[in-house]
């Protein structure tokens, strides 16, 4: 198997002066999909936003290494151009900027029209191309639009924040398909040029997307790592409280 392509090492992050993540470690190879479980407010989104490079998330310790390069100090847009992309849970409405413009920005190529139409067809968003981005979109439409943009952007590392939140059953299958496309699930693992880190609160997305590794995050710490289906079964049966108890038992002084 290949080398580690994303490595989070001892990452400590604060937001507006408050420490949210404490000494987080994680490693991922190309072709892999990892899943981050955790209760609301545990720091999952903070981890994704920090990897993406949003300035509000201040790294006070540790580093993020992407394909051998320490990107901890790199601005957001440079990270995007290096090959990191994100599907936002609640992206902003940008009035006047059309969905088409966003896809074109992601494609960054001459005469993108045919490709845009093709992607919109795939995401079932042809009628949304000339609408203002995210304006009046339903939960499912937002997710599909985010994944359509990522299909245009083709990032090496895709960060996906709650792909199933606010999505009905009809939409979730299509979202699963799009996600599998983004993550090149139709390719054998050694041939994939990308990897994904998915946040999920309910774990529902695992019915549609295969993942290799799961993590449970509680209070800004990764408490355990293992088979995602096994983790999900435990969470479903005993709730996040059990994860926290289990973690406390294993922590010195806990």
């Amino acid at each position, binding site marked *: 198997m290949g080398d580690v392509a994303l490595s989070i090492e001892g990452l400590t992050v604060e937001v507006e002066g408050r420490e949210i993540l404490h000494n987080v470690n994680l490693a991922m190879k190309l072709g892999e999909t990892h899943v981050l479980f955790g209760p609301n407010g545990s720091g999952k989104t903070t981890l994704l936003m920090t990897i993406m490079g949003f300035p509000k998330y201040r790294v006070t310790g540790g580093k993020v290494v992407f394909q051998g390069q320490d990107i901890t100090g790199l601005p957001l*847009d440079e990270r*995007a151009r290096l090959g990191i992309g994100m599907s*936002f849970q609640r*992206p*902003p409405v940008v009035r*006047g*900027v059309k969905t088409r413009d*966003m896809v074109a*920005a992601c494609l960054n190529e001459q005469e993108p029209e045919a490709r845009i139409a093709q992607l919109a067809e795939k995401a079932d968003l042809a009628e949304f191309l000339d609408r203002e981005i995210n304006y009046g979109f339903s939960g499912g439409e937002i997710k599909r639009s985010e994944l359509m943009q990522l299909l245009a952007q083709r990032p090496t590392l895709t960060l996906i924040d709650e792909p199933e939140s606010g999505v009905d059953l009809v939409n979730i299958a299509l979202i699963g398909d799009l996600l599998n496309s983004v993550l090149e699930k139709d390719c054998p693992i050694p041939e994939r040029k990308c990897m994904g880190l998915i946040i999920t609160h309910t774990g529902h997305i695992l019915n549609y997307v295969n993942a290799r590794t799961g993590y449970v995050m509680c209070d800004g710490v990764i408490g355990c790592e293992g088979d995602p289906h096994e983790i999900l079964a435990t969470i479903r049966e005993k709730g996040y409280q059990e994860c926290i108890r289990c973690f406390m038992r294993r922590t010195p002084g806990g």
Partner: protein
Amino acid sequence: MAETKSSRTIRDKARAAADKPAAFGENVDLGAYAGSGEEHPYQSDPSRLSAAAREQMLEAGVILDDPSQRAGTFIQMDNATVHSSVRQEGLEVMPVGQALDKYDWLSDYWWQAVAVDTDKYTASVELNQHNGYFIRALSGHKTVYPVQACLYMEKARLAQNVHNIIIAEEDSELHIITGCITASDKEAGLHLGVSEFYIKRGARVTFTMIHKWNPEVAVRPRSAAIIEEDGLLLSNYVLIKPVGSLQMYPTAKCVGKNATVRFNSVLVAAPGSSLDVGSRVILDAEEAKTEIVSRAITTGGSIIARGYVEGNAPDVKGHLECRGLILDGDGIIHAIPELKGTLAGIDLSHEAAVGKIAEEEVEYLMARGLTRNEATATIVRGFLRVDIEGLPPSLSGELQRAIEASEKDLM
């Protein structure tokens, strides 16, 4: 000329209003500007005007080198008509003085939509009139290409007083693009322009106005439209370059069933520019409709963005949308949307928003790989984008180019 046709009553009213202050905008001292300008020779071939003038006109959408793209052309420099021509049947384009001589009935339209005693500026146009254009589409005739009109100010400290009349007879279609320009980028001047629109039953008019002034120019347009049953007025206004002081509040009155008006304006105020711009629509007939959309950006100047919709008949519908973007800390945008309803069964609404570019939106675009500057430019471009239905493709292109030109100045 106009003076012989103006009745004594109109003149008397104008004289009585010669010192009447305007309802809005700072006072302009009319005495500070010269009444008469250079004499410019008539050009039967407008492509023989100076290259510099043609270039400036082109930036305001007036094309002189390729007449095939225009149904007619009218050019006034200072106070002289330098060119007037028509390329299509069923269309009339001429200096308004000539039209008054030609048509006795024109006095029935003269100062009917705009009151001559509105303020000292309308009075001044009556008392010191320097021509203007007359554009008329005959009944049932539809222009494919737009008519272009250019009001060009060359002489320093000139007061240009024009009175324009636009008539769209029944079931006609008329597209007009007008460019108002000052030759100099620093000489003072005053532009007073009265425009009266008469849109008859079933007629459709699009009027696209691009202004290019300079920081020393004062501008007081006074426009009004009367729209009959099933008539349509689509008015687009773009102010790109800095201006000293601009105040206008065009009014459209829907007097026939199902008459429709849409006003779009795109305003940019550079430091030192003072704009007070609004659109007013009176819905006096059943099922009349209006939409007023304005986009205002300040890079340090001051903008008052007004809007007024009044519903006085059953089943009328009006919406007013006013959005402002402050790109510089010293800029001011004051949005004043107003609605007035006088009976049940009407539907009037407005939305107004003023702010700066949201950092969250910039970062969203940056996460897709755009630099901060590219992301900001994309948001500003989106902000200025006003989708306009019913405009011929050539004019949409013209409008888009004008707006893109302003983007360059903003970034």
